[in-house]
């Protein structure tokens, strides 16, 4: 058995030119952790998710290399964070896309796929190694559902 056994073959996707506001809508409505970003021809480009949103809500100084590792003195309100996020909403998804997200191929063995999912701590795009096209996504829920119903 392989990765295709536990993947969702019709995942919600976004395009790199979609607005972040649109992506946020999908994420919040469906409680996704991340969404695959694909080109018009279905080629997988990267991943956009809650970590990107969190990253942009936090001050830049905490996220950069050699930046601040803790900021207990910062006293911002939810309104402040909302405003920061609001500034982001009209940018496009490619502004904050993770192009180095871990992926698996459709014929990655099942247990290996589960190990990668465990280590990745995030949904796994399933990408065809020859065409580079997205064929599905594996989330914790997909894996759990398939295992429990087997």
């Amino acid at each position, binding site marked *: 058995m392989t990765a295709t056994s536990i993947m969702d073959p019709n995942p919600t996707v976004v395009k790199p030119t979609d607005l972040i506001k649109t992506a946020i809508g999908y994420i919040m409505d469906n409680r996704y952790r991340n969404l695959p970003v694909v080109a018009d021809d279905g080629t997988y480009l990267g991943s956009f998710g809650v970590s990107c949103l969190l990253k942009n809500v936090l*001050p*830049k*100084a*905490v996220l*950069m*290399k*050699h*930046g*601040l590792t*803790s*900021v*207990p*003195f*910062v*006293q*911002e309100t939810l309104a*402040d964070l909302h405003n920061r996020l609001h500034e982001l909403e009209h940018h496009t998804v490619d502004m904050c896309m993770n192009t180095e997200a871990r992926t698996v191929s459709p014929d990655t063995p099942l247990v290996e796929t589960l190990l990668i999912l465990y280590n990745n701590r995030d949904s796994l795009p399933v990408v065809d190694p020859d065409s580079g096209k997205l064929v599905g996504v594996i989330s914790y829920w997909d894996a759990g559902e398939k295992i429990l119903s087997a």
Partner: protein
Amino acid sequence: MHEAHQASVIFGLDPVWYAGVLFVLTYTLIVAERLNRAIVAVSAASLMVVGGVLTQEAAVQGIDFNTIGLLTGMMVIVGITRKSGVFQFVAIWSTKKVNAEPWGILVMLVLVTAVLSALLDNVTTVLLIAPVTLLITDELKVNAYPYLFAEIFASNIGGTATLIGDPPNIMIGSAVGLNFNDFILNLAPIAVVILLLFLVPLYFFWGRSLETSVERQQKVMNYREADAITDHRLLWQSLFVITIVIAGFIMSHTIGAEPATIALFGAALLLVLDNLPRNIDEQSENVHGSFCEVEWVTIFFFMGLFIVVYGVETVGILEMLAEHVINLTGGDRNVTAMTILWVSAVASAIVDNIPFVATMIPLIESMAADFGGAEQLMPLWWSLALGSCLGGNGSLIGASANLIVAGFAERSGQPIRFLPFMLMAFPLMLVSILISTVYIYWRYF
């Protein structure tokens, strides 16, 4: 002065040529930055020994372990202290003291950076201050460039003021037997003057136009600096140890201890205090982390460099160079001092000041006989210190701290470009050297 060593170089090569070529190659590779400078220095040092210019015993003798010990000890102390959050506390506290007013913040961060640079090494200082600066400027929605530019200058000027503020001072102090008080009495006054005068162009270039809204100022005023202290026990332990170490530096003559001893004693004491409450497994991990804070690349770079310079000194190259310099300056001590000041400044703006100073020290020592003894060399030493430290302001590559700040600026989306920086910084650096010229002339001639 080191005794001449009868070198027997491999393949019967002339030791002067071998050491000289190796020296030039070492410098070239360090400047070119194609290979990590520690690799260059250690490799060249090895070749000095393998090639027969130095014996292993002589090579070890050439390493200034006082400088190495002082650097290592202070790196351990700072590495442990920073975990307490005290540096963020100081930056936030000083920002709030001026009601988060943009120009006021600029002045306060310049002063904080300068004082910290005087007591810690410049690279550590900017690693601590730059992120907080970016946090504040981001919050205030003001341009970070003036603040980062100012902090580069403040770190180099502050580092000039004390024995421990900048590696050139550590090297000079160690070689000449100058203590903490000597640097405070001779360099701190002019460093303070230069720092205060530096605020004038800062105000005219940027200070007048820095502004933000009251709401954004209030956001920064809402920061709770006390919460920046994440480990109160460690804070008090660190402050206690730092106080003892500074007191030790001030009284080093009285207690008969060299700076390395004082710094390493402080490091050992802080390690004990930080680890005593922990179980042995925690201690192992914690101590490992503390020693990882030491910049071993820098330490090995120094060690290799000391050996290389000792090699060229041993074969007499530096003595020859010293004679040339004295001939060029007509054997006039004051002219020689001024030449060293200006040449050091320009050289330090272009190349790494550490190899430059490492070479200049034995060269200047060789001049003692020509100028009537070691005591007559003092203006030259202070000129070397001022030139090599302040010269670092001349360009982005003038000092490691400059590049660190440039890295932060790049990552924050407000890059500091080499040429625009130099167009402003180099003239300002020359002005500081002009002020130093007047000071040296007035004080020592």
